[in-house]
């Protein structure tokens, strides 16, 4: 097509590249479109993630799937408890139910981003196209993971409700510190997503069989998060790791704000916390502050690791490779 044969553009539309009205390359098109475009990209990724997660089956089965896993995890602990101590320790039962319920959110958050990387690279082979678009890559992955986090949150809420209704978890709405709860949840989800970003960075480097890595990481963190037993049961070194883990402070923060007065996972007799600070257990304010600091640190580390991994992936041509065995 030459300029003399180009179609006449319709008034009000962008002139085509070959049209006489096209004045040549416009450098302003390469400038940063601003945060509005970034949020639009994030929103599109959220919508995409929801479409991918939610449209694979009928709503009832989706509901069952979203609920069965966290409820089963809670029941495992409840049965273990009832075998050993019968029904004599309702506080500890509340402790384990809340811990396992929240853990479904942890797993969803950790897996959400990692699986998005593997999905887009191996199954749909769209990762390279997303990467070369102007949208921020990490924002896109975060958006893709939102749907899974939402599903995990739904599972957590339902498990806690089941716990309250059927498993004897004591709950009094009048004692809930809603503001504190909102703050704790916000900080906690940031920390969870940060860990997910770190795992996504790992999955950028590893092969298709990494599907099970989020489960493995969540399982390992389970040990040092005070989710189902107080940290004081662990050796001191493991307790120290647990105290540095933002998830520990998040879960305890939820317990403190929603179910105050229960067993404390961080303090207690023989705990490293008590040895280091002299106090039996941290109060809610301390818990939130430590969550803020540790979550912030983890977020910083995660962002750095992700950027390093991204660069390495570009360097080694990993963004569009397919692996498999």
């Amino acid at each position, binding site marked *: 097509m030459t300029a003399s044969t180009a179609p006449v553009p319709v008034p009000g539309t962008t002139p085509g590249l070959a049209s006489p009205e096209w004045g040549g390359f416009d450098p302003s098109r390469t400038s940063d479109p601003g945060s509005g475009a970034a949020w639009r990209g994030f929103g599109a990724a959220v919508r995409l993630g929801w479409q991918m997660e939610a449209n694979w089956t009928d709503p009832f089965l989706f509901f069952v799937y979203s609920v069965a896993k966290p409820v089963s995890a809670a029941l495992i602990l409840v049965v273990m408890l009832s075998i050993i101590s019968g029904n004599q320790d309702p506080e500890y039962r509340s402790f384990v139910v809340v811990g396992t319920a929240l853990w479904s959110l942890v797993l969803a958050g950790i897996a959400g981003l990692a699986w998005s990387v593997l999905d887009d690279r191996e199954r749909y*082979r769209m990762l390279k196209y997303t990467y070369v678009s102007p949208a921020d890559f990490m924002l896109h992955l975060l958006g893709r993971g939102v749907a899974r986090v939402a599903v995990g949150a739904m599972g957590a809420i339902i498990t806690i409700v089941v716990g309250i209704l059927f498993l004897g978890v004591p709950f009094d709405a009048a004692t809930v510190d809603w503001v504190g709860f909102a703050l704790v949840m916000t900080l906690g989800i940031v920390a969870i997503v940060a860990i997910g970003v770190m795992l996504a960075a790992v999955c950028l480097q590893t*092969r298709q069989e990494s599907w099970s890595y989020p489960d493995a990481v969540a399982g390992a963190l389970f040990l040092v998060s005070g989710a189902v037993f107080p940290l004081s049961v662990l050796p001191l070194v493991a307790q120290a790791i647990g105290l540095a883990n933002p998830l520990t402070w998040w879960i305890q923060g939820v317990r403190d704000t929603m179910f105050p007065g229960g067993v404390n996972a961080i303090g207690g007799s023989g705990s490293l916390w008590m040895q280091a600070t002299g106090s039996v257990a941290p109060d809610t304010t301390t818990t939130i502050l430590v969550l803020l600091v540790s979550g912030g640190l983890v977020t910083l580390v995660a962002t750095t690791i992700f950027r390093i991994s991204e660069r390495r992936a570009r360097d080694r041509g990993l963004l569009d490779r*397919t*692996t*498999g*065995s």
Partner: protein
Amino acid sequence: MSVSSGPPAIAARGLRRTYNVKPTKVVALDGVDLEVPPGEFFGLLGPNGAGKTTLIKILTTLLLPSEGTARIFGFDVVDDVKRIRRIMNMVAGGEQSGYGILTVREQLWMFSQFYGLSRDEGWKRVDELIEAVGMGPERLQRVGTLSTGQRQKMNFARGLLNDPWILFLDEPSLGLDVAAARAVRELVTSWKAAVPGRTVLLTTHYMAEADELCERIAIVDHGRILAIGSPAELKKRVQRESIFRVEIDHLDGGPGSLAALPGVVSAAPAADDDGPVDRQSVTLNLVLEEDGVLGGVVVALSRMGSHILALRKSEPSLEDVFVELVGRGFSDEDGPVESPPAHPTDPAEPHEPVEVA
């Protein structure tokens, strides 16, 4: 016993295939009758969505027909599945299959085991085929790092592992550059020529590929075979005469002096002669009753003292044949395009519908 005395390589009767996709049922094949004798290089030529891949999937036992029958060397594609799989192989274009973690050699060896070769026999055959397809330098390279052309060569090697009696090629040069596509065509041709009786069914929408490789071609559109014949026979449907474009240094007596020769239907100046204004040569379009008349024209020109500077035969393309049969080109839609085309579910099978289970 010669292969040619046995059953046909492919025999399809009344083959129909429908897909129950939303919102309406799609008829991918609509009563296909086809017979390919053993040893033939047969082509299915048609635009995207014509039904070529659906037909090849039925013949390679990956898909059941909704109606009709099909047999490969006498074995039914519905019931004699195992027997057919022992004597056939398939190579599709645009394939991304393979285990990225394995080397080329290992990937091929794994498939050799699926076709019943022993361990050592498999390695030996794989090494031979790797050399034959020109992948010697890449034999220890991981599959995940291969270029498109290299991957397709590897796919071909896989397709030849079991020395099939019939080889199905589904758009084998899709996505390949000119050199790679040529290499693929040469490979298939030499493989087929090596042993009599080897049959190839090729689906393609590249005219030149079908024209070059196939002994007979079926033109397919909307699930039906519109015409079958050799490339020359199909082109004769469009143009029964022979047309030549000839450039000569001068012509005393003008085009009329040639038009009067026996067997010459017409001789006229070429309409799009873009030569320089001061050039003395003359370019003519000669329409002859048949190719043999050309000799007489050359002799006549020589007697007139004219010298031929260039001579080229103008042939209709297979697209011309398609247009004549269907009334539109390969890339033309039936009507105005009102929305973007649907995203294909598989790059190698554009517009093949998917049945919603």
